[in-house]
């Protein structure tokens, strides 16, 4: 996908791209809704006000980090507690660093004042949708923005009923909602497939991540696995 970077490959913005981004994101919305509602419920239990919970969803906008933060939320938020929240959030979201890096070859040709604000909305699903779209050889940056924007709206909107009503879906597992995101992730490997040789990197990434998830506490396994896979990709000789 990065290899065919000729001049007509330059990124651009369009209204059609925004709509396309929203459309490609629809399959993820049920699980995002449940996820955000779960955060809202948890925030209510931890004593955050309705406004605080909603503002956190809007400003932080990172599901896994918000849930983990609720897990270590202290009744008395001292400077030490706030500092801890800062670093835990940094660690949980470290995968965004890699996602941002992978967007560089594509979005790097746009002016920074357009890209950096857009990156405020970077999440797993928007990255997934955009990367999958880009792997198809097209380069409309609005697909990323459209996906990211609709996800933000749904995330913030679903936090509110979650806060007010408590757990709306009592057992997401029975409905298979916990598998929406993994299904989308795995489905993305299909258009990304460039032969078994290149897929060696994915195998190394997966194995390294599994090993790290057993050996190292916290959420480092995604970053460790992804870096191991990326390094492998760099070492496998290019056949192009």
């Amino acid at each position, binding site marked *: *996908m*990065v290899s065919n970077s000729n001049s007509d490959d330059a990124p651009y913005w369009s209204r059609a791209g925004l709509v396309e981004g929203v459309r490609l994101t629809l*399959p993820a919305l049920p699980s995002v809704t449940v996820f955000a509602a779960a955060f809202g419920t948890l925030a209510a239990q931890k004593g*955050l*006000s309705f406004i*605080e919970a909603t503002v956190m969803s809007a*400003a*932080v*906008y*990172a599901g896994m*980090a918000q849930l983990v933060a609720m897990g270590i939320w202290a*009744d*008395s*938020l*001292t400077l030490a*507690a*706030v500092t801890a*929240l*800062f670093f835990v*959030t940094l660690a949980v*979201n470290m*995968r965004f660093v*890699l*996602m*941002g*890096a*992978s967007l*560089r070859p594509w979005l790097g040709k746009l002016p920074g004042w357009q*890209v950096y604000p857009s990156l*405020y909305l*970077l999440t797993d699903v928007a990255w997934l949708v955009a990367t999958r779209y880009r792997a198809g050889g097209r380069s409309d940056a609005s697909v990323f923005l459209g996906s990211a924007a609709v996800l933000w709206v749904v995330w913030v909107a679903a936090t509110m009923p979650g806060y007010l009503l408590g757990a709306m879906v009592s057992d997401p597992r029975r*409905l*298979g*909602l*916990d*598998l929406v995101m*993994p*299904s*989308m*992730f*795995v*489905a*993305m*490997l*299909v258009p*990304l497939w460039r032969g078994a040789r*290149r897929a060696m990197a*994915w*195998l190394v*990434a997966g194995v390294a*991540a*599994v090993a790290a*998830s057993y050996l190292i506490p916290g959420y480092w396994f995604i970053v460790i*696995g*992804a870096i191991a*896979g*990326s390094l492998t*990709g*760099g070492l496998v000789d*290019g056949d192009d």
Partner: protein
Amino acid sequence: MATIDAANLGVPMAILAMAAATYLTRIAGFWLMAHVPVTARVRRMLEALPGSIVAATVLPFVLQSGASAVFAVSAAAGAMIVFRNDFAAVAAGMLVAVFARSFGF
């Protein structure tokens, strides 16, 4: 509901700290790659990155979630290969998960 005085400022500060940390991770990689010369090797590393992130995210989750998750993501991949459609992939994954779990997997 934040009872003590410190918490009145504590919650906004906490939200601000979390938002700042998150935005930092969102822009750091993109910014960094502007300052790394993109050699053929770095290009291959970037090309391997998306699939590697996917594998590193999904494989630990699937192994911890058990057989139903293995069936579900396999079905999702199969549906994607056949239909080339995300809706079909997600629907297949959820259906197989519900089915497998109703049988106690």
